[in-house]
């Protein structure tokens, strides 16, 4: 799999809704297209798949051009090397699970009983379901079969349209680990549409934020999440993620120390070997700012930081962006506190991080 970037340019006008994007995306890893409903994220994915025709578009992956309206090129969906997972699993009701999985394989002329198929069945934990009909599966199982069905074709790109949206929280938690495993074990680039912050934090390597058919921001996950100029920063679920490494375990206190580029953090004990790479999520609401290093505090994680930006939301809350080494962090504080502490861009302060969650 080469790492040449994916180029996507689409313009579409429906009157009330228009889409106008020009994106260059990494040719590997998980790119999440994030936005609220009506932001155009699903439309963009459908344009990429060719399920939605746009008179004005360009799409290129691995050096292959799927659409170039200027040259009159539009490769029909069935000739594109893609895997698509729909919001509803969309399995063929008249075929067994195995029949569904073999549907695409037969059409690309591959043996349908390969070790690849077995591996994918195992990866998604559906080996025992092959003889069932789709209506005898749970929602979570159906969606796993749909993911496997897209994956067995070894497509150039995997497109997933809110694959978890139709499932309840418990089923989501059941599938998320499979998705993480999938992304670690296959090298297929993945475009993943969601409106869930949790899925963004868990899965994304690269994040594109869409609003009303326009790209608000795009970049690596840590970079984009810590941007202060996107509406995400104002959201009460606003959070930043740091990539960290396990440094030390403290069995007595059930704590683990992790390293990041600007220092160390103590987090609740993790069952992982020293040196393992992890992703830590820090909610902006769990970050507070003090001017002098506190000597007596219950909060373990106190680090030195520099204020890089402040935005007042005019509703009594300020979003503060801080730099700690190379890492960025967002803090939500009251506007009153920001005034009392006379916070300014460039100031050096201490941040107290009250809580962290380990993602994977």
């Amino acid at each position, binding site marked *: 799999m080469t790492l040449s970037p994916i180029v996507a340019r689409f313009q579409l006008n429906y009157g009330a809704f228009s889409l106008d994007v020009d994106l260059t995306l990494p040719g590997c890893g998980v790119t999440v297209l994030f936005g609220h409903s009506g932001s155009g994220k699903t439309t963009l994915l459908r344009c990429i798949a060719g399920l939605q025709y746009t008179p004005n578009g360009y799409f290129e992956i691995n050096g292959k051009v799927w659409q170039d309206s200027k040259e009159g090129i539009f490769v029909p969906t069935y000739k594109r090397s893609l895997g698509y997972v729909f919001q509803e699993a969309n399995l063929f009701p008249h075929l067994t699970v195995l029949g569904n999985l073999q*549907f695409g394989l037969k059409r690309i002329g591959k043996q349908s009983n390969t070790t690849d198929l077995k591996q994918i069945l195992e990866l998604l934990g559906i080996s025992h379901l092959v003889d069932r009909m789709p209506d005898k599966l749970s929602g979570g199982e159906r969606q796993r079969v749909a993911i496997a*069905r897209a994956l067995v074709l070894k497509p150039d790109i995997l497109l997933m349209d809110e694959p978890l949206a139709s499932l309840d929280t418990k089923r989501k938690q059941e599938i998320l680990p499979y998705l993480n495993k999938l992304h670690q074990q296959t090298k297929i680039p993945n475009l993943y549409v969601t409106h869930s912050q949790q899925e963004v934090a868990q899965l994304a390597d690269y994040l594109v934020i869409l609003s009303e058919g326009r790209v608000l921001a795009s970049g690596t996950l840590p970079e984009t999440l810590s941007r202060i100029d996107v509406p995400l920063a104002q959201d009460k679920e606003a959070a930043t993620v740091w990539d960290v490494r396990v440094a030390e375990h403290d069995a007595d206190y059930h704590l683990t120390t992790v390293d990041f580029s600007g220092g160390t953090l103590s987090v609740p004990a993790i069952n992982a070997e020293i040196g393992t790479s992890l992703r830590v999520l820090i909610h902006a609401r769990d970050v507070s700012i003090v001017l002098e290093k506190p000597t007596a505090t219950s909060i373990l994680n106190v680090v030195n930081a520099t204020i890089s930006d402040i935005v007042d939301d005019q509703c009594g809350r300020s979003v503060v962006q801080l730099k700690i080494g190379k890492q960025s962090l967002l803090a939500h504080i009251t506007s009153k506190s920001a005034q009392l502490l006379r916070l300014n861009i460039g100031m050096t302060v201490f941040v107290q991080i009250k809580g962290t969650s380990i993602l994977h």
Partner: protein
Amino acid sequence: MLSAADIATLWLTFKVASIATILMLLFGTPLAWWLARTQSRWKGVCNAVVALPLVLPPTVLGFYLLVLMGPNGVIGKLTSELGLGTLPFTFPGLIVASVLYSLPFVVQPLQATFTNIGKQPLEAASTLRANPLDTFFSVVMPLAKPGFLTAIILGFTHTVGEFGVVLMVGGNIPDKTRVVSVQIYNHVEALEYNEAHWLAGCLLSFSFTVLLVLYSVLKTHPVAHQLK
């Protein structure tokens, strides 16, 4: 009991209905598919034309067909030029009339089924490398089985039961156009009630049986269930 002439009419009816049903499936399936998927402004007109035989008296349809297929009609002139002669009062003419008369009974259930299937399975198939024709045969046809069953049975039984159009276009020619419904009429006209009873009873039990089979199959068909 059934006379040899009665059995001949039964056999002729079966032939007419079978051939007409096959032709209706051949023409009706693409038509129903197009009607289910198109956004064209002609859709309304086409729907109305296909449905016309449902509301027109069979004599009206028969009358127009008679005129069109007659020696001075557009179709009649064409068939004469092609050396086929004219179609009224012939077996092929009866088939043409039957196809037009029963077409809504084939097109409408198919159209409803195709609409019901929706575009999701088609999109899934296209992301799995199936071209449109392949998708029609490997996804749409199996999913539309209940619709095809309904279309075949309604199209066949309705053709078996036609009378007005046959009388207008086909006439009453033994072994050529004399079907069961016409033969029953002949018996009643001649006050042969016993013979009429036998034939009428045959038609009644045949129609009831196939409809019963149809509705019990539809009730238990797994795909029919899921598509609801």
